[in-house]
C-alpha cells in the first residue's frame, strides 16, 4: 500500500521531467557561477567550495519545494489524499521520501562532480557527498512544513524562501564545516552525529507538522 503511494508520486514525476531538470540545472549553474564571479585562484576556490555547493543545494531544494503541494491543491487531489484511509502523517512521509529521491538524491549524486570542479581531494569529496546525503533530506523535511503553510497563498515561493532560509542556517554551518574540518585534518564525527540527529528528529516530527499545516490550509 505504501509502495502504491510511492509509485504514484514517481509516476507523476515521470510526467513532469522538466521540473527535475530545472532543479538540477539550477544547481549546476549556481555552482559554476562561483568561480566565474569570484576568482580562478585554485586555493581560494578550494576554500569556498563547501559553502558554494551547500548554498546551491539549499536554494535548489527550496526551488523544488514550491511545486510539492501547490498543484495538488489546485486540482483537488490534495483533498482526495487527505481522505485516504491511511494515517495522513504516514502518507506525507512517503510523499516526502519520494520527493527527496526525485529532487534531492540527484544533487547528492552530482556533488562529487562539483567537488572535482573545485579541485577537492578524494576524502574531502567523500565527506562533502556524505554531508549532503544526510543534509538534503533534512532540507526537504523542514522545507515541506514551510511549503505546506504557504501553499494556499499567492506568491508563496518568496515567502517560503524567507521562512526557511533562517531554519537552514545550522545545517549549512554543520555541512560546510564538516568539509572544512576534513580539509584541515580534524575529526568530523561530531558534525555527522549532529546532522544525523537533525535527520532523525525531522523524520519523526516533520510529517505531523506538515499534516497539521495542510489541514489548516484545507479547512
Amino acid at each position: 500500500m505504501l509502495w502504491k503511494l510511492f509509485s504514484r508520486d514517481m509516476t507523476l514525476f515521470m510526467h513532469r521531467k522538466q521540473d527535475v531538470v530545472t532543479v538540477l540545472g539550477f544547481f549546476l549553474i549556481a555552482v559554476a557561477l562561483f568561480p566565474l564571479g569570484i576568482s580562478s585562484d585554485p586555493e581560494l576556490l578550494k576554500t569556498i567550495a563547501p559553502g558554494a555547493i551547500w548554498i546551491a543545494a539549499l536554494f535548489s531544494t527550496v526551488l523544488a519545494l514550491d511545486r510539492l503541494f501547490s498543484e495538488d491543491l489546485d486540482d483537488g487531489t490534495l483533498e482526495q489524499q487527505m481522505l485516504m484511509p491511511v494515517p495522513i502523517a504516514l502518507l506525507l512521509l512517503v510523499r516526502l521520501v519520494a520527493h527527496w529521491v526525485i529532487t534531492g538524491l540527484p544533487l547528492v549524486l552530482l556533488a562529487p562532480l562539483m567537488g572535482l570542479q573545485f579541485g577537492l581531494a578524494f576524502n574531502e569529496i567523500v565527506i562533502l557527498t556524505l554531508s549532503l546525503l544526510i543534509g538534503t533530506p533534512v532540507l526537504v523535511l523542514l522545507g515541506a512544513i514551510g511549503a505546506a503553510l504557504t501553499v494556499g497563498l499567492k506568491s508563496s515561493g518568496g515567502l517560503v524562501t524567507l521562512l526557511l532560509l533562517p531554519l537552514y542556517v545550522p545545517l549549512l554551518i554543520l555541512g560546510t564545516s564538516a568539509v572544512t574540518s576534513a580539509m584541515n585534518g580534524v575529526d568530523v564525527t561530531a558534525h555527522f552525529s549532529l546532522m544525523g540527529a537533525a535527520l532523525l528528529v525531522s523524520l519523526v516530527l516533520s510529517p505531523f507538522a506538515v499534516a497539521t499545516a495542510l489541514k489548516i490550509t484545507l479547512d
Partner: protein
Amino acid sequence: MPVSRLLKSKFGKEKVNETCFMLEIEGLAVEREERLLFSGLSVKLSAGEGLHIVGKNGAGKTTLLRALCGLTSPAAGLVKWHEQDTTEFREEFCSDLLYLGHKNANKTELNCRENLRLALGVQAISDEEISDALHKAGLGMLSHLPTRFLSQGQQRRLSLARLLLTDATLWVLDEPYVALDYKAIEWLDSILERHLNNKGLLVLTSHQALTMTATIRVLNLGEQRA
C-alpha cells in the same frame, strides 16, 4: 441490549442492520470567517437512504459536505459513522467514504486510465475493470489521452467513473451534475439509483431538481439557519 448484539457491535461492519443509523450528524455548526453558516444541524441516514442538500448560493452546502468528510472542522457538533465518531476513527470512516468535490481531482498530465487508478487510491483494481468503467463513462476512445485534452464534461465523467469501481458505501457528491449533458445525467442517475438499491448511502448537493426516480430526502439549508 442483549450481549450477543453488544459483541457484534464491537466488531465493525457486521452490525449493519435495518434499524440502526449508519450516518449520524449531531448538532453540527460551521463557521466561515467568523460568520455562522448553520448550527444545530442534525440528520440521520440509514442504509439505502439518500440526502439532497439544497439552499441558495453561500448557504453552506459545500461547507456542510466538507465538514461531513472531515476536511473542515466544525465549530460544534460531530459526525458519527457506524456509531463511532469519525474524527476518532478517521481511517475506518475514510475507507467507506467517497468524496467528489467541485474540483475533478484529475491530473492533467496523466491519461484517463492512470487518473482513474490514482483516484481509487489503495483499492486494488484490474485493468479490465478500468477499461470497462471508462467505456461506460463514454471515454473508451479517449482513455490514452492526457486529460488536459478533455472537455469539462468529459473530465467530470472521468471523475464520476470512480463511482463504478469504488467499494465505498457513503458517497458524498458536490454538484455532480455540473457540466454533464442529458445522456450523462441519465447515466449518473442510474448509477446513483443502483447504489441506493444496494444499501449505499448518498449525500449530494444540486441546484437542479433531481431527475432520478428513487425517493431521496431533501434538506434545505436556508431553513436550518439559527
